[in-house]
């Protein structure tokens, strides 16, 4: 009998094996068989990931591949560090991938059964990405994840738009991979190690230009994946063109994992080196995060292509998570992960619902869909509930993340974060509500529109089959129930808080890797802010309704009250930034990198 920690490689190996097997029989298998095999492998992965999570609750374990245990301080092989956070993220990944596969059951065009093996590879890569403790292995899984994502993004080869969106996506994310690799090479030159704990121990408190530049490269490389402004430009294009289940994987998982990598690397390698300048670093990260929140929220409200709208709301919320991370204490990490969980569930739900809309009404543009969804009660319910979740209305788990953040902000002595929460929650929720009012209630006059929304998107399904089956409604319903149930499920917050205190502590991490034991320390309470967070969520939702109303009924309102329609027209410079030209995207990326790098070099180096 293998102990449960022996399962560590299985969340990676099982889906990869499944992808290989499925690709081998791809030509002969019918659609139903290929889907069943895909779902079976994803389920097995979910089971192993859950077992791993349950095992890791008893303590973080380290798994050395090829039986290469470290010799003294020297790490020889590749290690997985399986803690509650990594295993939990792997479980979430497997769960959402399984839901996407169920959603796409005989429904989405699978491109000659290419879809299922690609999704399985994507799943395996994400599991490896969250579990690994080796920085080059992180890069390999980053690249594997990206390659699968590029291919998945261009699944609909019959239209020009998907190829353009996925080309921009591929170019920017490949540049990201090389930024990361350059950063890894600098770290290797400085320390002669590839294991994150060993690098962290070897760097110690050193913070010369080399270490700071490596930090810049790694952070900006993963920021590109995480779609932080100005690295976010690829994300709306990729989301606008990808099939719905793929959008779910991108928005609910891949983008967040980019941010997870930043957090992981910061706390395992750079924490001690950069801690003398923690306040400068906080300022730097917080400004990037706040700009992302504001820009993502504004653009979200100005979009009329449903998937692009949701994509910008992802940008907005990832910015919020970066702001939470910039508080840099262990409670903030716990809050960030709670918020990440909530966001993953709610955003998947919304994307699934948009997929149902595209399936039933054959369009994704708000203006074309106007008044056409009046008969779809179930879909309308799902859509409006999702909007409430974005605002953080009380029964949803997002308010727990907000409560933790307020607590962490108090510890860090930072004010005003709840305003960012309020802004992000209300404006993204208002955009979703506005679209819902137009589509399902048929309220107001002919909606405004923008250029991207007018690009026709071919439906992902065949026209003769417009019926909705239970397996279309089950995934979004499951997500929404999960997002509400987690609020009332006791205990997981404490587990998260305790494991975050290990996660966000470089010494504890190094200790864990070398001795496979973990030390927990006493943690501050995080529940006392919940009532005020619930209140904030409630007001954010009310404000969102008001904003949506000023947009929908703009003709009946006096000029000075048409705030919504003013925001909805968007701002020209922001729209111009989203030009669709790969050269522009790389230029913005370079500018972002240079700004981050210069500030970091001037402020952090001695």
């Amino acid at each position: 009998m293998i102990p449960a920690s022996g399962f560590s490689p299985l969340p990676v190996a099982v889906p990869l094996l499944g992808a290989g097997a499925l690709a081998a029989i791809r030509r002969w298998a019918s659609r139903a068989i290929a889907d069943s095999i895909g779902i079976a492998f994803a389920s097995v992965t979910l089971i192993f990931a859950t077992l791993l999570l349950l095992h890791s609750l008893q303590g973080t374990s380290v798994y050395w591949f090829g039986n290469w245990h470290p010799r003294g301080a020297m790490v020889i092989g590749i290690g997985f560090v399986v803690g509650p956070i990594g295993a939990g993220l792997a479980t979430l990944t497997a769960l959402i991938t399984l839901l996407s596969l169920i959603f796409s059951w005989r429904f989405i065009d699978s491109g000659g059964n290419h879809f299922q093996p690609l999704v399985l590879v994507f799943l395996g890569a994400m599991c490896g990405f969250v579990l690994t403790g080796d920085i080059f292995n992180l890069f390999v899984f980053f690249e594997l994840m990206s390659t699968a994502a590029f291919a998945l993004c261009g699944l609909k080869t019959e239209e020009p738009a998907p190829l353009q969106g996925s080309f921009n996506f591929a170019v920017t994310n490949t540049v990201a991979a090389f930024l990361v690799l350059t950063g890894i090479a600098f770290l290797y030159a400085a320390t002669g190690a590839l294991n994150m704990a060993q690098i962290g121990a070897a760097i110690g408190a050193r913070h010369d230009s080399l270490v700071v530049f490596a930090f810049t490269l790694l952070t900006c490389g993963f920021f590109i994946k995480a779609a932080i402004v100005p690295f976010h430009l690829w994300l709306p294009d990729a989301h606008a063109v990808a099939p719905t289940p793929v959008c779910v994987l991108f928005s609910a998982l891949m983008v967040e994992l980019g941010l997870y990598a930043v957090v992981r690397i910061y706390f395992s390698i750079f924490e001690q080196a950069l801690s003398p300048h923690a306040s400068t670093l906080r300022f730097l990260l917080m400004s990037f995060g706040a700009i992302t929140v504001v820009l993502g929220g504004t653009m979200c409200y100005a979009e009329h292509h449903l998937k692009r709208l949701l994509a910008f709301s992802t940008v907005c919320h990832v910015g919020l998570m970066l702001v939470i991370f910039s508080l840099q204490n262990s409670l903030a990490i716990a809050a960030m992960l709670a918020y990440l969980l909530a966001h993953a569930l709610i955003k998947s739900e919304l994307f699934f619902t948009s997929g149902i809309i595209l399936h039933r009404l054959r369009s994704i543009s708000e203006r074309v869909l106007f008044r056409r969804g009046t008969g779809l009660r179930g879909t309308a319910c799902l859509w409006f509930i999702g909007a409430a979740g974005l605002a953080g209305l009380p029964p949803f788990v997002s308010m727990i993340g907000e409560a933790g953040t307020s607590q962490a902000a108090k510890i860090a002595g930072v004010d005003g974060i709840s305003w960012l929460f309020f802004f992000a929650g209300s404006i993204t929720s208002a955009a979703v509500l506005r679209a819902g009012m137009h589509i399902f209630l048929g309220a107001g006059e002919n909606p405004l529109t923008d250029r991207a929304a007018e690009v026709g998107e071919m439906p992902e399904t065949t026209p003769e089959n417009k019926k909705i089956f239970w397996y279309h409604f089950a995934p979004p319903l499951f997500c929404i129930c999960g997002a509400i149930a987690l609020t009332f499920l006791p205990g997981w917050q404490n587990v998260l808080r305790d494991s975050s205190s290990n996660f966000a502590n470089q010494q504890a991490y190094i200790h864990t890797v070398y001795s496979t034991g973990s030390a927990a320390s006493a943690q501050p309470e995080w529940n006392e802010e919940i009532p005020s967070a619930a209140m904030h969520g409630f007001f954010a939702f009310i404000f969102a309704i008001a904003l949506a109303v000023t947009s929908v009924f703009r003709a009946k309102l006096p000029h000075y009250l048409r705030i919504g329609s003013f925001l909805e027209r968007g701002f020209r410079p922001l729209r111009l930034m989203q030009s669709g030209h790969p050269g522009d995207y790389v230029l913005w990326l370079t500018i972002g990198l240079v700004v981050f790098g210069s500030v970091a070099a001037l402020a952090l180096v001695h």
Partner: protein
Amino acid sequence: MTERLRARIFFVAGFIFLALYFCAALNLPPWGDYRGPYGDFISRMVVYQRHATDAVNAINYDYRGFDTLGEEFILFTAVLGVMMLLRRRADTATREANKIKETRKLSISVQVVNFPVFFVTVVFGFYIGLHGQLTPGGGFQAGVILASALLLVYICENTEAFQRITSHRAVEVSEALGAASYALIGLAALCLGVPFLTNILPLGTTGDVFSGGNIALISACVGVEVTAAFLLVIYSYLEEIVTGEVPEE
């Protein structure tokens, strides 16, 4: 944004980037003065621990074999992506483009020379692949060489033979199985109760072709996968030209 404006802004940003890069590089250990412990440790131990003489391949297929697993799947995924992007829908009508019949036959001398070159390349590919644990080379390089040997068949203008070799589903299946068998080798170790990708084969005598344990086996899987992968990519690009059919619009 106009092109000139974009180039100008880029030059400002790019030179700051260069400055940052150079500043950081000044703190690197001087060129030729590598001092990290990781590589040295493996250099010292590889012959003793793995009975393999090529340290680079020992790292790739053993010490850091898990990286190579991911790497192989990157190749696998990309090939799947290329085939998906360039696939032809089953229901698309095609018409003859008459490309091949127009081209002139190559002179007989080129074909005569080409034949032995083809065999020499195949032999060289196998040599490189089988001696990965001893000398520079290995499955990956061998795969590329073997795939390019088959390209010689195409250059020889015998497109039908090329088509027969590469459009076969066996290539696709062996590509997928080559990738999957790497994962299976890892899982086999797990079934024996040792960690994933632990060496489970006898190490053999140093310097022997059958030495280094898993290294040769994994290298062979990678070789199969890479050969098939490159053939599939090349065929995906060449399909229209080789078959002489383009889709009817």
